């Protein structure tokens, strides 16, 4: 992990692929109690409550459906 700042002073945290996966796993576990793999499977199957604030947030964090993303693939 490296920390830097943009010219405007915005902090930038660069994670390598392993660290980024661990970050996502932690956030998804914390928000939903599921692993990333299980969250994605259940989200794509329509099994999660779309009205839950964590579900929508985590789908966005994982870029599901955006630019062809599937989880952290």
């Amino acid at each position, binding site marked *: 992990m490296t920390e830097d700042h*943009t010219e405007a*002073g*915005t*902090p*930038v*945290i*660069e*994670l*390598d*692929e392993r660290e*980024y996966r661990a*970050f996502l796993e*932690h*956030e998804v576990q*914390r*928000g939903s109690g599921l692993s990333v793999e299980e969250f994605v499977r259940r*989200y*794509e199957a*329509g099994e999660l*409550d*779309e*009205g*839950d*604030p*964590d579900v*929508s*947030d985590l*789908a*966005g*964090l994982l*870029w*599901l*459906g*955006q*630019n062809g993303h599937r989880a952290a693939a």
Partner: protein
Amino acid sequence: MTDARLTLLPIPEQDTHYNLACVEDGERVAFALHGVTERLFIRQAIEVVGDHCQTVSYAYRYQSGEGRKSWLLRWEYFRERPRPDYEYPLAHVHANAEFVDPGPATARLDKPPSHLHIPTARVPLELVLWHVIAEWGVTPKTDDWRDLLSESLEGFERRRRAP
């Protein structure tokens, strides 16, 4: 309105893709606001396209405390459907509220009112900040907050209208 900073998290192996949130001790958190005990959670997914940043998705939550379940209002947006059968407006707002006078229409709902995806246009973060300052009593850091937010909003509108 806050001393917190949003952090950019580049997505490895995706040169133009970023997540943006307030990160403390490796976790995304809602940040404290001046003048009130409520907190604001911000998450944006951003793609750099040419010479500008494009919002891919966002979640903004105004909440009564640190806990995620204490949300009062939520603004959410996806540029594309997150799954093929996603049936809600891509830009929407949630209010953690109940109907004062629930009639037969609400009796047909298969969900609480707070789970309704109420359609909106895409809401720039600047308007959320404007809202919490103007109506929820959040204290701005400077007296010229209206000018600063207005200037930033003009940039949002220019980018939105760009081909």
